[in-house]
């Protein structure tokens, strides 16, 4: 009595050319699955573009996902990643990809190996693109004649097994399609927990064999010349699978501090309409955090705010600035047009506001609160200079400047700042309180 055909349908007409290694691979894959007794519904055959992609219809009981060129490994990785957080789990993606697909999708192979997802890749290496007419691939041997290298290939072939070893692939093997051991090696690759890749070396009868007068014996010579060992497992390294690593990582995560709440206060803000403010200084000197503190204080007093930050691409050098709108009503347009208040605490900030047009946009009513070290003068606006950097120190200068401005123009009640400080990390509170006090004192000078 024969076992029911759970894998390759026994009467399947294989769609491959006569003598194509792909036919051997699907038969041996079926045998390997049968040997392992893998439940068909736990396997997803993920096929790439090319003749390898014809395998889907041959396995009527497996899940099949026929993908785009080179991406089969990435889709399979996505399925395996999702499976890692599901219960019950145990999905086994098997990728069928050619040498062409392996190169265009190289990054996906590298990352799957790094992640050690439980994906098995059967790399069908027949040294060229078969379905599209026998073009050269990155795995074509030297001197290999293809449709696009009629005088022989002159770029050295890529050794994918060696390359993936450097990506920490846990299981790597290479085997001829004709090998008696193929089913056993496929079974070992599938059974291996984590990423496994088996390179199956074969000849394309339509192009490779014909144009290179190559036979099975020649194939052995070719791979020998390339320094490949064929027929053995090249690497088998037990290491935690993605699923194990991820769950371990989750357990060892540090608990996150909850986002601090800004307690509401009961004294109202003294703000009739929208107010636009720019704070500018030097990166790393807490310009943007001072702006955030102001927005939190405003929030405590029931004032709407928007804050937009800008700094050079390097993040930690040059200027740093925040544009803020404050309003008793929800804010629509967040652009600056003409600012009401401009605070500049360093030369970097001044230079940037000159370059981005903010200074030119200042009107006669604009208040410019500048650090005393900035000796330039704007075309329009009321200028107030304070020794912010000297008195408060550069890292407190922006917050001190905001405090100084609000001391003169009390839009927000003092309690708003207490609420804003309560929402700051405890280690920052004393610093911020000091900055505010210095600012208030400077305003009285």
């Amino acid at each position: 009595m024969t076992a029911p055909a759970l894998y390759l349908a026994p009467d399947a007409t294989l769609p491959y050319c006569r003598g194509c290694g792909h036919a051997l691979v699907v038969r041996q894959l079926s045998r390997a699955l049968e040997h392992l007794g893998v439940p068909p519904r736990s396997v997803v055959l993920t096929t790439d573009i090319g003749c390898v992609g014809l395998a889907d219809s041959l396995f009527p009981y497996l899940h099949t996902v026929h993908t785009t060129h080179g991406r089969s490994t990435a889709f399979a990785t996505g399925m395996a990643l999702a499976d890692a957080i599901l219960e019950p789990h145990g999905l086994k993606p098997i990728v069928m990809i050619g040498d062409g697909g392996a190169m265009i999708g190289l990054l996906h192979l590298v990352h799957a190996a790094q992640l050690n997802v439980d994906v098995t890749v059967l790399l069908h290496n027949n040294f060229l693109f078969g379905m599209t007419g026998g073009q050269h691939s990155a795995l074509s041997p030297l001197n290999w004649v293809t449709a696009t290298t009629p005088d022989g290939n002159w770029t050295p072939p890529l050794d994918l097994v060696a390359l993936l070893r450097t990506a920490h692939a846990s299981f790597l093997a290479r085997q001829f399609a004709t090998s008696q051991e193929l089913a056993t090696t496929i079974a070992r690759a599938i059974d291996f927990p984590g990423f496994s890749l088996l390179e199956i070396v074969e000849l394309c009868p339509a192009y490779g064999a014909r144009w290179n007068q190559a036979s099975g014996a020649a194939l052995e010579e070719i791979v020998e010349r390339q320094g490949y060992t064929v027929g053995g497992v090249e690497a088998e390294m037990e290491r935690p699978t993605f699923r194990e690593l991820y769950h371990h990582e989750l357990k060892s995560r540090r608990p996150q501090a909850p986002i601090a709440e800004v307690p509401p206060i009961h004294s109202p803000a003294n703000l009739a309409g929208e107010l636009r403010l720019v704070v500018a200084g030097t990166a790393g000197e807490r310009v943007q955090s001072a702006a955030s503190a102001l927005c939190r204080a405003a929030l405590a007093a029931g004032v709407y705010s928007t804050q937009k930050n800008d700094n050079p691409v390097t993040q930690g050098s040059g200027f740093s600035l925040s544009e803020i709108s404050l309003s008793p009503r929800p804010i629509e347009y967040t652009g600056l047009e003409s600012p009401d208040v401009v605070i500049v605490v360093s030369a970097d900030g001044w230079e940037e506001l000159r370059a981005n047009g903010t200074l030119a946009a200042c009107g006669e009513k604009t208040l410019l609160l500048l650090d005393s070290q900035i000796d330039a003068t704007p075309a329009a606006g009321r200028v107030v200079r304070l020794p912010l950097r000297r008195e408060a120190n550069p890292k407190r200068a922006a917050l001190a400047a905001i405090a100084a401005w609000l001391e003169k123009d009390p839009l927000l009640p003092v309690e708003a700042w207490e609420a804003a400080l309560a929402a700051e990390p405890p280690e920052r509170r004393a610093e911020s309180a000091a900055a505010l006090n210095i600012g208030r004192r400077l305003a009285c000078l």
Partner: protein
Amino acid sequence: MLAEGALAAGCRFFAGYPITPASEVYEVMMRELPARGGLALSAPDEISSLCYCVGASLRGLKALTATSGPGWALMIETVQYALMTETPVVVALVQRLGPSTGGATQGAQGDVWLAEFSTSGGYTLPVFSPSNAAECFELAVHAFNWSERLRTPVVVLSDKEVGMTSEVVDDAALEVPALAHRKVATPHADYTPYALDEPDGVPAFAAVGGEIKVTATGSAHDQRGHLRKNSPEVIEVLLHLERKIAAQAEEMAMVRADLDPAARCLLISYGVTARAARQALSKLRSEGSRVSFLQVQSLFPIPQRWLERATRGVEFVFVAEENLTGQYRAALAPFLSRQQVYGINKIGSLISPKEIAHAMQGVMA
């Protein structure tokens, strides 16, 4: 807030790659998703990001990725795959100034065409466009809902000015729409993965790894998922990809309309520019102009019925958007053939309320 919306929508998978101005979504998902029973992961590039999301969705999870124009360009191949395989997935496309690397920290609304017209064959990709943080939340939920209901990729088209501006959100006023989930197939012997039982219907979903055998393919296929050439059934399956979306177009329509029945002018805008437009509207009205305003939140499918309503009796239509050539204006043009249509366009910085009002007054005078 877009990430929070995705979490509220039941998103359980995120794969991302850093890019300004979309990295905020990436970082929030990396921080929040694992704690809420999902998986968030750094992918090695944008192509992998979306492939991982589609793979996870095939396994049954709601999935999101976030990117900007340069990354979206790389994702278009996989967007089409999701469309063809009828796999739900949501992409947050946070626009920045293009072309190419462009200006990473400069806002723009230049990816409207790139988002919508990214499929070979011109299939409709639902696109939602938020104008502020609260809308990021709400439209992310709607995007997931429609992606699930229609089994198709959906885009949330934000931009740097919306995505990277901190603003106060009244969370008590946030509306969390009822959640929708893909219709799941019940195991039976004759499951048809791309069934066309109803002409406008959406086939029931079976997850890879489940009891029902899945046959998914990005190649032209029949109802059973088999590759067929020259088969009328394959063409029917392709037509159905568009029909299922067209059938829901009216229900998908989302606008914020502020119409004046006596208006001769209609101002249309979306995304961040809608905020300046709303302010321009107040100014014009305070000066006595009769103007209607339509903020479009569901850019595609185009909310035709709302357009018809808003243009009743209207002679002039203005479309304000932060791009060079009036991308959404061009998409709306076939529906505005009886009006004179003007674009209010600019690149490099926000269009201001003044500029909008000025442009409109110039024509209306």
